[in-house]
C-alpha cells in the first residue's frame, strides 16, 4: 500500500490547538503545586500565578520540615502495608475463585456466579458496612481497610474470562494425567499463565489502595494507623491548624506563613509513587479495559 500524506486541513490545526490547551490545563495545576512545594514555608507566598519560578528562591524547606516531623513515615508504612497485603490477598483469592468458574462442567456454577454478581448491583451501603466492621472488632485496624476489598467480583469475572479465552486446556489435561490435582494445576499452570491479567488487576488494586481515604477516615482513628492519603486530606482539604502548628514546631518556626508550600510538598510526597509507576499503569490499565471488553 502506498503511504499518502494528505495536506494539513484547517480543522487539524484547531484540533491540535485544542489538545495543546487541554494538556496545559491538566499539567499546569501539577506544575503550580510543584513550584509551590519548593517555596519557603516561612515566607509569605507571592501573589499571582507563575509559569517560570524564581529559581534562586526555591528551597526544600517544606520537604525537610515534613520529614523532620516524621509522621509521614507512619503514613507511608501503613499505606504500603494495605496496598501490598491487600493486593496479594486479592490476587490469590480472586484467581482461586476464577479458575473453578472457568470450568463449564462445574456443577452449581451458575448459582455461584449469580451469588457473586448480585453483590455488584445491590449493597448494604455505608452505615450497615460500618456497623459490621465495628461488630467484627476491626475499628482502628488496618485489616478493616484490606479485608472488605479482597474478593472483588469484577476482577474474578475478568480473570475467569481471561482463563477461558487464553489458557490452553490441553496443558491442564496433560498435568491431570500426570496425577496433579486442581490445586497443583492452579498454582503451577493457571497462575503463571494468567500473568498479564493478574498484573492488570494487581495494579488496579494497588492504586485503589494507595488513593483510598474514605474507609481510612471511617475506620481508623489513632495516629499510628493513619494512611498517607488521609493525612494529606487533613492538611490539604481540612487545613488542620493543629497539623500546621506541629510542622511549625518541628521546623523551629514560630508560625508558618505559607502553609501552601507544606500542603503542596505533602501532596507531592503522596502522589510521587503513582507518578513513578504511571507509565506502567497506563499500559496495564488500558489492557485491562480491553480484556474487560472481551465478553465471556
Amino acid at each position, binding site marked *: 500500500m502506498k503511504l499518502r500524506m494528505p495536506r494539513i486541513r484547517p480543522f487539524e490545526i484547531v484540533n491540535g490547538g485544542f489538545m495543546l490547551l487541554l494538556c496545559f490545563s491538566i499539567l499546569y*495545576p501539577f506544575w503550580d503545586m510543584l513550584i509551590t512545594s519548593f517555596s519557603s514555608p516561612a515566607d509569605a507566598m507571592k501573589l499571582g500565578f507563575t509559569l517560570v519560578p524564581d529559581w534562586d528562591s526555591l528551597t526544600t524547606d517544606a520537604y525537610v520540615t515534613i520529614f523532620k516531623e516524621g509522621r509521614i513515615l507512619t503514613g507511608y508504612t501503613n499505606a504500603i502495608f494495605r496496598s501490598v497485603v491487600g493486593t496479594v490477598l486479592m490476587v490469590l483469592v480472586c484467581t482461586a475463585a476464577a479458575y473453578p468458574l472457568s470450568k463449564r462442567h462445574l456443577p452449581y456454577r451458575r448459582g455461584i456466579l449469580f451469588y457473586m454478581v448480585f453483590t455488584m448491583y445491590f449493597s448494604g451501603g455505608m452505615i450497615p458496612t460500618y456497623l459490621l466492621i465495628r461488630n467484627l472488632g476491626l475499628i482502628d485496624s488496618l485489616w478493616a481497610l484490606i479485608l472488605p476489598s479482597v474478593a472483588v467480583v469484577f476482577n474474578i469475572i475478568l480473570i475467569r474470562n481471561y482463563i477461558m479465552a487464553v489458557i490452553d486446556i490441553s496443558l491442564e489435561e496433560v498435568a491431570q494425567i500426570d496425577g496433579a490435582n486442581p490445586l497443583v494445576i492452579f498454582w503451577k499452570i493457571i497462575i503463571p499463565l494468567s500473568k498479564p491479567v493478574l498484573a492488570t488487576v494487581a495494579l488496579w488494586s494497588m492504586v485503589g489502595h494507595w488513593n483510598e481515604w474514605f474507609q481510612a477516615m471511617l475506620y481508623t482513628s489513632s495516629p499510628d494507623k493513619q494512611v498517607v492519603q488521609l493525612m494529606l486530606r487533613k492538611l490539604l482539604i481540612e487545613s488542620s491548624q493543629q497539623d500546621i502548628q506541629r510542622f511549625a514546631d518541628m521546623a523551629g518556626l514560630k508560625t508558618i506563613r505559607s502553609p501552601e508550600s507544606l500542603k503542596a510538598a505533602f501532596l507531592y510526597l503522596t502522589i510521587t509513587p503513582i507518578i513513578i509507576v504511571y507509565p506502567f499503569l497506563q499500559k496495564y490499565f488500558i489492557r485491562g479495559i480491553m480484556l474487560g471488553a472481551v465478553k465471556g
Partner: protein
Amino acid sequence: MAKRSLAGNLVHYRYFYLMLVPAIVLLFVFNYMPIYGIVISFQNFKLLKGVWGSEWVGLTNLLSLFNKPSFLTALSNTVVISLLRLAFSFPAPILFALLINEMRPGRFKKYVQTVSYLPYFVSWVIVSGMVIQVLSQRGLVNALIDLFGGQKINFIGDPFWFMVVLIVSGIWQGVGWGSVIYLSALAGISRELYESAHIDGASRLQQARYISLPGMYPMIIISLMLTISNILNAGFDQVFNLYNPSVYRVADIIDTYMYRLAFRDVGGTNYSLATAVGLFKNVVGFTLLYFSNRIVRRFSDYSFW
C-alpha cells in the same frame, strides 16, 4: 456421565469448591451481611441495644425522610447534579474520542492521550486540593480574570460557580480515561468503511457522523444505562472534598447528607435514618438499571442480561 448427587458432586469437585470458599465467605461477610444490616432502617436502632434489642418501627424512617426539608434538598441537588453531568460530562469523552480519532497517528497524539489519562490516577483529595489552589483568590484563573480587568470570582464559595466547578473539574478528571472505551470501539471499525465513504465523496464530518459515531453506539448505550442507574450517585468523593457549608444549599448530595446524618451531628447521629437513605438510594438505582436495561433490550441487541 452419570448424574451425581449433591454430596457426590461436592466430593468429586472438592478441590474446585475449596478454591471458591475464600471468595464466597468474604462476599458473605462483607457484602451479604451488610445487606442484612439494612433491617436497622426499619428500627429505632441504638448502638448499645444492637439489632436484636432495638425497637421496630416499620416504614417510619423511610417515610419520615420525605417530610425532612434537608433530605428533599439533598435529593433534588443530587438529581440536578446528575442531570448536569448527563448533559455535559457524559458526551465529553465521546466527543474527545472523536477528536483524538481525527488526529494523525504519531507522538503528539500519544502524548495527548498520556497526559489526558493522568488526572484519573490521582485521588479526589489531590484533584480537589489542586482545583482549590488554581481557583483560589490568587490562583491562575483569578489572575487571568484580573489581567483582563474582570472581577475576581469566589469559585468555591459561590453556589452558582461551585456547580460550574463541580461539572468542569469532573470532566477534567474523567474525560481522558472515559474516552478509552470509545477509542477501543473506534479501533474496531474497519478502515475500508472510511475509504469507501471517502471515495463516495463523504466529508470527514460526515464520516464521523455516519461511521465513527454509530461504531460507538454499543458502548454509548451501555454507559448511558450505567449513568442513568447512577442518578442518585452524584460523585461523593468529589463533592465531599470540594464542598463547604457556604454551598450546602446546592452541593449537599444524598451521600454527603447520609454521611453527616450518621457520623456528624445533623440533629443527632441517626444510624437508622441514614441507613434508610441508603436503602432508598439502592432501590432506586436497582430499579432504574432494571428498566433501562429492558428498554435498551427492546430497541437493540446490547444489554446487560
